[in-house]
């Protein structure tokens, strides 16, 4: 199993969610995060005062899928989150050792 973590632009969340549900992926964890990479923060000026955005607001989504589906999911997220611009984000894929469903105690891919 693989854990897929993607940091994307906030307004792309709905697109990604929709694209994932089209390939049958319905569950994910969504977090509001801030950070910066090549897309640096910027400043705005209002009445002479500067307002600096150091960290750019982003959305992080996390989901765990079976290893066979990982590539498909990564590609789906990539396509849906792509606006062709800087700051579209990154996708990380990590190995997952075990998954346990709390309610039933099911393990492995059955618990996904």
């Amino acid at each position, binding site marked *: 199993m693989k854990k897929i973590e993607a940091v994307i632009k*906030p*307004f792309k969340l709905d697109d990604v969610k929709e694209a994932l549900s089209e390939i049958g992926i319905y569950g994910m964890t969504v977090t509001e995060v801030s950070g910066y990479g090549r897309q*640096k923060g*910027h400043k*705005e*000026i209002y009445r002479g005062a500067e307002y600096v955005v150091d960290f750019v607001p982003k959305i992080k989504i996390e989901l765990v899928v079976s290893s066979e589906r990982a590539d498909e999911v990564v590609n789906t997220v990539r396509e849906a989150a792509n606006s062709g611009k*800087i*700051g579209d984000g990154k996708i990380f894929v990590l190995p997952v050792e075990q998954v346990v469903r709390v309610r039933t105690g099911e393990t492995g891919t059955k618990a996904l």
Partner: protein
Amino acid sequence: MNKTSADILIKKREDLIKQFLHGNEPEFLEKHASLIDEYFFTMFEKSYAARDMTIKGFPFAVIALGGYGRKEQCIHSDIDLLILFKDSVPPEVETFIQELVYPLWDARFEVGYAVRSIKECLSMAFQRFDILTTVLDARFICGASLIYTSFMEQFRADLSDNHLDSTLNYLFEHGEKRHFDFGDSTYRITPDIKKGFGGLRDYHTFLWYAKIKSNIMYRRDLEYYAFLSHFEYLTLEKSLNHIWKTRNFLHYLIKRKCDTLHFEYQTEIARLLGYKSKDNQLAVEYFLGDLHTKMDFLKQINQITFEDILSNIRIKKEHSKSLPTKTNGLIIKKRRLTFSNTVAIMQEPQLLLKIFLESGQRKIPLSIEARRMVYEFIHLVDDNLTKAPDSIKIFKKVLALSYWEFNVLNVMLTTGLLEKFIPEFSAIVNKIQYNHYHLFPVDKHSIRSVQIINSFRKARGLPVDTLYNSVFKEVREKNVLIFAALLHDIGKSDPGSEHSKAGARIAHSILKRFDFKEIQIKDILFLIKNHLLLIKTATRRDISDEETAVLMAHKIGKIKLLRMLYLLTVADSKATGPKAWNKWTENLLRDLFLKTMGILKKGELASRKTHNLIEKKKNIVLRLTKDKWNRDEMERQLDSMSRRYLIYVSGQDIVNHINLYKNLGSKDFTWQVSKEKGSNIRSVSICGKNKPGIYSKIAGVFFMNELDIVGSQAYSFGPGYVLDIFKVKQPRDKIFEKETWEKAQNDLTRALKDDHFLDKAVKKIPKMIKLSSGKIPRSNSIKIDNETSSFFTIIEVFTYDFPGLLFSITNALYQSRTDVNVAMVSTKVDQVVDVFYIKGLENDTKIETEQELEQIKNAILKSLPKIEAKEIKNEKN
């Protein structure tokens, strides 16, 4: 034998709980306590150890403490016992405890007990206030009643002689600490129905206070001893019953003692309590609405306690005289505002409103008595009063005086006065939205929004303005904003429809009563209708795209409306809860506000005039293409285009450009060369994929092929595409013009693929030009404007025309790792002003650092040839 008594208790208790679950047991708590009493009676009677101790001269009393003492025994409440001896405790008591308590423990009752002598008990009670409060609720069960009475007498005497002030102080401080730790329960997703503000502990505290002051025994005495009015007592009973029932069901579901009303159980408890969903509202929302109302009342009860303690104990003598106020009929007594007498109210009912103004202006709360009076005399507030112009003026002033720490508006709501002025408000009182997002019922949320708006008024002594302070300062009609905040969710009373639209409808009839000008009403309705616009756009649209800000600027239209809408959005989100308001949303929203403000201030892209112009253009394009292309698709295409482009390009040209775009396919670009009538100028329209440096490369290819550029414009043509227009002089080789264009086209294809293709053209750029006019030349200059636009750095280049000019500038920009998004290039005689809107290639935002700006400036200057006047010497000679 012992087992049997416990068994009987268990069986009877099960039956009682069953009856309760079926809704047949209104007096569950008391009966539950009595069942346990019965168990103790029989156990005491049967106990040899008990008899033994009495015979040996150690009589004792079995006493119930705490909630069990009050006979308020919920399903899994603790059973607190005190085994009280007169002088000393004999060792045989161990056996008795085993007989009495162990069977209960075995049956999983939560039993706590203490074995003490009277003396021990007294000294402990006055050392530890938590023990003292349980003793206040002590109730005799069985054994030697004399020991109980003698203990209680001593306790009472000691309390009133030596410990009164310190005990009351404890109640006060402990209450404050509890509210600090547990917070306002009525404003939580998972309220603590015991310890939170509005929880049962507030009632306990009140009862203890009454017991300390007046020796009362039972809850019923609260009315008889005039701690509560008859009506208040009835409300208290109703409130307690509701909360106890809730607590019982909670215990039943969780199968243990618990006071936190977890989110997961709320729906089930609502069902058990018999709530039904109707009119688009969930059963659980009705349930929580009721619960909030009941807890609100306990909060008021709590305030009575605190106010009384404050005025009796904590305020020194000199404050006890009553002081006059500026308003006749209102006085200040013990630091609280109140009416001088009831006759004053009857003579001038407007006092019922004026007291809130006085309270808000002087920041002195209404006394509990004054609140009662407003409530009791509320029938005097009739239409004549609420519609009188001076009443309306006062009402508006009060709205502007409500802050979070000083909540005059909330008092106005609980006394019923707010609803007299705005009856429509009743429909949202304690209206719950069942989710993790909304913390407050709609009415409290609305009031909180008003308070947050008022808090944007800069507090004195703060060194710098926050953005909110300075925007608030610029809002001229504060009342418009405050009314919008008060009424922005009024549409939630109509759950069937979209609440912002319904809200505007309902608010319209309210506002007509409040003496607003037509234009002000229009503004308030706009704010209500659009109060979600900014936050939705900030979180769901690409705010780094200029078009997003332009669209916002368009919809909002006026700077003053944008300011108010921004503050309303902030207040609304803040008043909703931490899910709706955090650094993350704050950043997004602020960014969108500042960018939209930039567009509105500049006016170029979002004025009414441009709006009309763009609509006209769109219609022309639709008309021109109606036979050729699908209308819906056409509209989508037009909507995705940059507004700047739509403003400056003619309808027919737009159609031609769409044609180019449609023919693009997998190619990097397509172009079309057209002749302008009666001139030797050729117009080249190029539609291409937005590859870095494309604009500069086109200019370079034209320069290489000796095509003289006289003007050019560059635009973004929807996401990922550019549309550039070049005005070029007719090629010198007039016979083979077609071939020249073909060669240029091939060159451009190669240049786009190979970054070094144009290197040889760079070398051909002249190093020096001599002016023919003979005037003293002005040197090249560059102006950088980084403030006008939030999205681009705007660069203006002043120089003289020469072959390859555009290429040399744009190439310098491209080599500095920037991208030209918009360009306006034109030549007048020989002096040139070219304007470029650029962004960094790496980060797709405008250039931020001074250092980078300086580098770009120098790169352009370096690329330009030196200007010299021609034949100056000759002229001098």
